[in-house]
């Protein structure tokens, strides 16, 4: 019935879909009111935009270097949309630097739509959504230069980042910005934790859109995510017990082959 090795993957996806459906149903019927714990990094975003407004200096947004097959980019675009709405509301300049040419037109549209939804279409500046190069050194040098030139007040970095993350964080710090950095790229999490004022670690970036919008439908999907974590944690505990008893091969083969 299933393709080789796809059975368990399918069951996991099916579990997630059912969990999302169930959580949505309970939310729509008003049977449950879910809440996401406080995430200081996300609260700091509006505070940072307020700071930029008071200082009359721009907000910088970097969506990371992922392409469309990277979920981190999708999560980042949802946050960007919310950030753009707030900057539109406050009449604060927002500069978005896109590292991949393929992503550029969509990011531009996301920002434009956010301004339109706030009734500020005329305040949208297409030239503030920038693409420099698909290569780190062209992109990163341009961004660092722009941070100093524009005297950025707030720097928000959410998405996939490579070694260049620390460079942006340090450059923005030197330019006097407060910073929110978030990534699920485990390589760069330590740099964000060390160099940014607020850091979003791993899955927090996927919860960001739900947290910022407080949309009950999105929050319900985060609840389903927690249920999936319980399932995976159960599997981990089972694996540890079986491995300790020297009988893990069966489970390993089942998960890999079936």
């Amino acid at each position, binding site marked *: *019935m*299933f*393709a080789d090795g796809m059975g368990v993957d*399918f069951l*996991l*996806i099916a579990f*997630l879909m059912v969990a*999302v459906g169930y959580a949505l149903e309970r939310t729509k019927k008003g049977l449950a009111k879910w809440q996401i714990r406080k995430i200081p990094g996300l609260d700091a975003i509006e505070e940072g935009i307020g700071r930029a407004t008071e200082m009359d200096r721009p907000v910088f947004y970097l969506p990371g270097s992922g392409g469309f097959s990277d*979920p*981190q980019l*999708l*999560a980042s*675009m*949802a946050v960007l*949309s*919310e950030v*753009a709405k707030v900057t539109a509301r406050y009449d604060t300049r927002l500069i978005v630097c896109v590292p*991949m*040419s*393929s992503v*550029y037109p*969509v990011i531009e*549209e*996301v920002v*434009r*739509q*956010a301004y339109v*939804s706030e009734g500020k279409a005329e305040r949208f500046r297409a030239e503030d959504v920038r*693409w420099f190069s*698909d290569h780190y*050194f062209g992109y*990163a*040098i341009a961004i660092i230069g722009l941070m100093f030139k524009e005297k950025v007040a707030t720097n928000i970095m959410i998405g996939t980042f490579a070694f*260049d993350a*620390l*460079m942006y*964080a*340090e*450059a923005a*710090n030197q330019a006097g910005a407060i910073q929110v950095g978030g990534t*699920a790229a*485990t390589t760069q*999490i330590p740099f964000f934790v*060390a*160099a940014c004022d607020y850091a979003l*670690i*791993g*899955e927090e*970036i*996927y919860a960001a*859109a739900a947290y910022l919008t407080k949309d009950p*439908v*999105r929050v319900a*999907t*985060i609840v389903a*995510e927690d249920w*999936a*974590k319980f399932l*995976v*944690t159960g599997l981990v505990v089972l694996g540890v017990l079986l491995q300790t008893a020297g009988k893990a091969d069966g489970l390993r083969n089942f998960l890999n082959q079936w």
Partner: protein
Amino acid sequence: MKKTLPFILTFVSALTITVCVFFDLAPALVEEIDKWFILSGAVVCCIGLVNLTTVHARNIKRRGRDWDLSYVLLFITFAYLVLGIVAGPTHPLYAWIFDSTAVPLGATFYSVLSFYIVSAAYRAFRAKTRDAAILLVSGIIVLLGNAPIGEVIYPGFGTATKWIMDIANTAAMRAVIFGATIGSFITAIRVFLGIDRPYTAAGE
């Protein structure tokens, strides 16, 4: 229409791929979609080129800031593009230009990271709390254990580093990887179901 069509396209293509891949159905269709994916990757490179050309051509036309550099950029871009297409990536001239510009520039740029690390080391790595102090001490042990001098100073640094990397680091990384992977699944499902529509300003 502008909002519905992308959602329908996303939903139908995701559903097709999911069903075909999980149940090993219509391999020819999957192969065809795979080819489209690769081809679309090549096409979007052209979008970047069009954007770059438009921005700099406009700058030249308006005699904007550093317009003369826009000329240089466009000349280099198109000259190298034509050379690559005509002569191929292994042509000695093409390879020489690449080896003597992109390679050293790339390596130099990566090396610049060390300066930022030095600056961050002084500014950011502070033991402000107990947790930060634990992180800092672990970081210093790993720094010493990862360079030969660490074991010259004290042979135990190598063993301590191995423990931190194999046990503490691996445990934390696994937790982050589990959480992030499930989070990415949920993000994909949100896009699949149209709850998140990043292509139309996040569900607007």
